[in-house]
């Protein structure tokens, strides 16, 4: 029986791996340092965790959550140059592609751009017939100058014809080696944001290929025959073949994995989650087992996209956060952070023989942390400083929890991550604080238990057919998409239905967004 799964999460400091058995039981866990080429860290973590597993041949699926693509964008490294084709003219000429991009990123990524005639109205009728000659001319221009082409089109989430036809024409002009990203495959309504996401996606294809090949090779070299997946922004899975084509959909998967992992480890579906790392802390909220998503436009490396990312509040509070005493502002008070020694906490903090007072030292002296550092080294630390730092930590965490909560009803709080020891046992407005088993590898666990999903985002007319009929059709479409993504049909459930009425006009138009999720079919 191939009933084991391995989850791997590449974080800023650590690469974690867990092996999970039937029913979500943790069989083994391991941590390794994240390395300059992250594949090395992945290999180390996978080898360490597999060494603890008796029957490696039982491993059937491998899930990777990684920050590779996000870091490539943020650091402007290894990005491909992209030709940008928009099918919407004569509409949209007032705002050219990449108009609001940071200049440094634009210089690296943006190749030839064109707005050609084509695209659709809200009711599915064409704005203009697709200008096939223009698309061919654009293809010829791109053939020698870029590595990939991003195609977007007005209302393509509802009508894909022009994007699909443009892809055929570009393949004829540029040959089969030119990769083409189509906007309806990576984004939802909002032409400029979807176009941005498509360009980023196209520029990440080389990075993605390296990650996917590296992950597959790691598994093969470890002698594991597995189906491999990557986790996406919403906490669901895509196959490595999809990840090869849609890497931009992984850029926000880290926090989602840790929240979903916490949820499953603690067996709670409605709770606050605090993830305390070495440098920063994220607080989010789980509703029905999924992170509540942010309503604000999400920027990736300074580029506006319309991804739905977990609604998080972050602050500089972590195990490596530095405490500045007395002399800083002269009145004897302390200042905590926002700077951190990061992964150097294992050498620079006082309890590890260093000379920097960090929150890990404070946690040790205050009795919150054990199993890390040498208590005798911290004897010289001033008790008042510790008390003041602990007060600061408790105050900040209470405010973060209060800000995230949707009502005054107390909720449980799950503490995860390497710095979870800093979280106090009592917090106002929190019913109880839980440190779930295996909480320090919650993110890798979240990857290991991730499910497959399908979604729909379209404009419907409630006047043309009833609201119920429209919603039912949207749900069916989402379920079909989930099954195509590998979900087991019998266990599918609809996890979100959102309706946004079209304002300022009559006609009963409504934008409907539906997501269906289910466990992977065996």
């Amino acid at each position, binding site marked *: 029986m191939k009933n084991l799964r391995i989850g791997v999460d590449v974080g800023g400091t650590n690469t974690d791996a867990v092996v999970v058995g039937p029913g979500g039981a943790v069989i083994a866990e391991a941590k390794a340092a994240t390395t300059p080429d992250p594949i090395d860290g992945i290999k180390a973590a996978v080898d360490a965790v597999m060494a603890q597993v008796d029957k490696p041949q039982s491993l059937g699926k491998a899930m990777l959550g990684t920050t590779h693509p996000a870091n490539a964008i943020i650091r402007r490294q290894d990005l491909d140059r992209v030709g940008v084709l928009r099918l919407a003219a004569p509409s*949209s000429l007032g*705002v050219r592609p990449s*108009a609001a991009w940071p200049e440094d990123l634009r210089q690296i990524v943006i190749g030839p751009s064109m707005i050609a005639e084509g695209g659709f109205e809200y009711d599915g009728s064409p704005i203009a017939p697709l200008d096939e000659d223009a698309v061919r001319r654009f293809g010829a221009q791109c053939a020698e100058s870029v590595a990939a082409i991003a195609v977007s089109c007005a209302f393509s989430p509802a009508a894909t014809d022009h994007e699909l036809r443009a892809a055929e024409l570009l393949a004829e002009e540029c040959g089969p080696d030119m990769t083409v990203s189509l906007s309806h495959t990576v984004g939802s309504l*909002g032409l*400029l944001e979807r176009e941005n996401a498509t360009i980023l996606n196209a520029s990440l294809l080389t990075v993605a290929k390296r990650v996917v090949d590296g992950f597959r090779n790691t598994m093969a070299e470890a002698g594991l025959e597995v189906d491999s997946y990557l986790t996406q922004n919403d906490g669901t899975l895509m196959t490595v073949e999809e990840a090869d084509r849609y890497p931009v959909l992984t850029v926000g998967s880290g926090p989602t994995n840790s929240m979903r992992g916490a949820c499953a480890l603690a067996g709670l579906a409605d709770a606050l989650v605090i993830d305390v790392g070495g440098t920063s802390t994220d607080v989010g909220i789980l509703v029905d087992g999924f992170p509540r998503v942010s309503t604000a436009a999400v920027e990736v490396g300074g580029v506006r996209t319309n991804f739905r990312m977990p609604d998080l509040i972050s602050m500089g509070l972590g195990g490596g956060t530095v405490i500045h005493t007395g002399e800083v502002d002269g009145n004897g008070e302390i200042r905590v952070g926002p700077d951190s020694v990061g992964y150097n906490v294992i050498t620079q903090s006082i309890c590890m023989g260093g000379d920097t007072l960090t929150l890990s030292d404070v946690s040790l002296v205050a009795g919150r942390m054990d199993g890390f550092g040498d208590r005798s080294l911290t004897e010289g630390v001033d008790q008042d400083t510790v008390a003041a730092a602990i007060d600061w930590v408790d105050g900040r965490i209470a405010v973060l929890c209060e800000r995230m909560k949707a*009502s005054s009803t107390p909720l449980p709080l799950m503490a995860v991550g390497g710095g979870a020891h800093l979280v106090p046992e009592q917090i106002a407005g929190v019913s109880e604080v839980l440190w779930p088993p295996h909480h320090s590898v919650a993110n890798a666990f979240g990857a290991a238990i991730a499910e497959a999903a399908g979604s729909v985002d379209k404009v419907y007319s409630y006047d043309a057919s009833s609201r119920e009929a429209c919603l039912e059709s949207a749900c069916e479409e989402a379920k079909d998409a989930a099954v195509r993504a590998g979900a087991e049909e019998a266990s599918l459930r609809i996890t979100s239905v959102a309706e*946004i009425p079209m*304002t300022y006009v009559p006609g009963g*138009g409504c*934008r409907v967004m539906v997501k269906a999720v289910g466990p992977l079919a065996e």
Partner: protein
Amino acid sequence: MGATLLGTGGGGDPYVGKLLVKQAIEDYGPARVVDVDELPDEGLIMTTAIIGAPTVILEKIPAGTEFRSGIGALAAYLGSDPVALMPIEVGGVNTLVPIATAVEMGIPVVDADGMRRAFPQIEMTVFTLHSLKAAPMSIADEKGNMCVFEANTNQIAESLARAAVVQLGLANAISCYPMTVADVRQCGIHGSMTYCTEVGRRLSQVQRGAPGAWDELLAYTEAALVFSGKVIDIDRRTTEGFARGTVVLEHLDDPSRTLRVEIQNENLIAFEDGEAVVTVPDLLCLLDHESADPITTEGLAFGQRLDVLAMPCAPEWHRDGMLELVGPRAFGYDIDYVDSWKDRR
């Protein structure tokens, strides 16, 4: 930022407007905003704006040409070209559209408008209070379709425009209220562009955490912070094309206090414990409690922590006919206008 705040939850996202202006300036040179006194009395002033559904405008970004062709059609009908453009509403995306078009046409924008906030209907302007007519007016799309029409009343102008927009793709250009410079001087709200910029600048200071920035913003706008609370209930519905809704906030410090905000595209009225505390046409703005970002109606979500700001409407609104046109009863609420700033006018 100022335009989003003055949009009071509606008015369309100014982001696209900002990008239109940016491109127009890149292609045609800098924008010129002039005081009404710098223009000749008999000169023609025309307006331009986006009309349609914000959800559609997200996909159908303006071409820019629809605004020029709508203005061109109306100018041909009138037999006269404009000396400057003017926003109808300074609040939301339509604050910025006339700037982009004026830059393309090589003419200035007048520092004035007809609302100094956002309203959902064409007749809801101070111009209507002065019996200035919205018609003749034009509606145009990006493909060269356009119509110019007359209307007896500004209310009929509104329904004719709405009908045309449904046929033309729900993302169009409107040009209405053609008037002389003398009309603007006598009937318009003066300095509204400047006001918007100054409000935006002060709000940015608040967001950067500058010392005293909140007091500065409140002093400049004569605004009051009426409530700080968390969204505990949202009810949305669409009737006759207008998004109506109710949001209930629970006070951050005192959970026994609740504030109910009534929305029809824009935030209209706030009730605390059943009693109206802020009423249209005064401005009711919702800001994120932490970041001070203005929150639009579409962006409202359960659990958000919001500051509720009440700002007096432009003093030009206070004349005969205001309450019938834009008071609470004009939006179907059987309550009286709460005149909180009476003593200061």
